[in-house]
């Protein structure tokens, strides 16, 4: 028979082809299996912001101790798989990278730094495989985050220029994130409290009635109240007093229009915010705050009262400041009898 291959011939031909094909695949697989995997690999980037000029730190353990290492290549790709052609992540720029630190297997210099590939080179010698090695690169421009994940293929070579057969291989992964912005605000607050006494903070303020007892011409009658104020507002605060002098029907005690000493036997009503010796009453302002009595209410042993007067003020934020208001009441011998009362309202507000 001429011109036709017998079935036996066909079967033989097919077997030979299959043997050759398998042999080729076997050779190819045997070649890849020689490169060991770099151990304990990591990539730390100082900033994960897109396009940031930042520091990349590679850490890994060399696997092969019997073969010298003359160069290490760091190649930025969108896939870790060596079987897939490396496509550089958009925006990566390692062309200006500088090797600022190396530990473990060292002695390298930057042979070349391209946009997506850095090659370190040294005189070939066996690497340190006990413990990790680390290489720190500054001035690496991050990818632009599209996609957010990127890989770096790390390959070691016995040659000094990252050519020829590979010794060890490994890939590391990292990601570019947009970050999370957290903002908050501390609002301006003004705290104020008034009481007959405030032993501690505002929660301890108690009493709003001062009993001056029976008024006498020979002696001054005295009383105190306290108030605390604080604000974190930039514009500060002001405390003003409103009200009337002590009255009993149409009978009044003379309010002291200007700072005046206490003079028993004369009709007087006034207050100040200082410690006094004549009479012995009151305390100076207390606390770390910056609020201070205004001039008319800041003179020891001088008392005054005008409704609407600002008695204390701070033009800036102030910690808690405690003021003790000292009241004096004197009556003249001709003062009509009666129950004399006064209601004083302290108003604390922001300044403007």
């Amino acid at each position, binding site marked *: 028979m001429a011109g036709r291959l017998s079935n036996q011939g066909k079967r033989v031909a097919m077997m030979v082809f299959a043997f050759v094909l398998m042999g080729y695949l076997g050779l190819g697989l045997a070649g890849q299996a020689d490169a060991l995997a770099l151990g304990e690999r990591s990539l730390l980037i100082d900033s994960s912001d897109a396009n940031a000029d930042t520091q990349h730190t590679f850490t890994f353990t060399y696997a092969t101790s019997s073969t010298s290492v003359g160069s290490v290549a760091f190649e930025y790709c969108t896939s870790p798989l060596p079987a897939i052609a490396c496509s550089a992540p958009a925006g990566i720029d390692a062309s200006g990278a500088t090797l600022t630190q190396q530990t473990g297997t060292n002695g390298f210099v930057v042979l070349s730094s391209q946009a997506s590939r850095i090659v370190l080179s040294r005189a070939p010698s066996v690497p340190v495989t006990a413990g990790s090695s680390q290489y720190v690169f500054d001035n690496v421009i991050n990818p632009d985050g599209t996609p957010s994940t990127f890989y770096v293929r790390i390959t070691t070579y016995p040659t000094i220029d990252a050519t020829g057969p590979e010794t060890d291989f490994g890939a590391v992964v990292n990601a570019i994130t947009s970050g999370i912005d957290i903002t908050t605000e501390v609002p301006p607050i003004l705290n104020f409290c008034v009481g007959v006494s405030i032993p501690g903070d505002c929660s301890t303020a108690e*009493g709003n009635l001062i009993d001056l007892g029976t008024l006498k011409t020979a002696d001054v*009658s005295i009383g105190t109240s306290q108030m605390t104020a604080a604000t974190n507002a930039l514009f500060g605060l002001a405390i003003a007093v409103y009200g009337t002098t002590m009255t009993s029907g149409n009978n009044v005690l003379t309010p002291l229009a200007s700072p005046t000493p206490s003079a028993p036997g004369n009709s007087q009503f006034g207050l100040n915010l200082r410690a006094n010796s004549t009479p012995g009453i009151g305390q100076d302002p207390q606390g770390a705050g910056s609020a201070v009595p205004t001039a008319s209410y800041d003179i020891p042993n001088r008392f005054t009262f005008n409704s609407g007067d600002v008695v204390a003020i701070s033009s800036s934020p102030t910690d808690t400041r405690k003021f003790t208001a000292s009241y004096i009441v004197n009556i003249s011998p001709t003062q009509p009898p009666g129950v004399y009362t006064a209601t004083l309202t302290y108003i604390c507000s922001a300044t403007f």
Partner: protein
Amino acid sequence: MTSTNTRGFIKRMLRILPLFAAGIVLFAASSVQAASNGLGITPRKDYSVEQGKSISDVLYISNLSLSQNLEVTMRLLDFGAQNETGAPALQLNEDAPAVPWTLKPFIKIPKSVSVPAGKSTNIPISISIPASQGAGSYYSAIE
């Protein structure tokens, strides 16, 4: 007749000054016990509002007493400048004529609010500027 565009963008600077008022009674006779109080408040708010527009906001009140609940009543006051310190001169007399810069006709606030001991609350306020209102700065206080 002018269009909205040619009328332009007219802003009013509005300033609200919350106040805290507390009283002390001096009594030359027998004494009566009553509760004292302490409050934390939003001290000042500034707004810019166009003609014909409204805004809504909240003011913060905190009851600093840990044992006494508070019933807080509120009213609007006019004020002017006390002096160069920036302290306000409050107009406490409700019968007094309104000042030209009053914000009182345009603000709505609740009449009262309850604040439990040690708690805080937000007070809703709203400001509505009439479309015909002239440009300028307006101020009021909430006592």
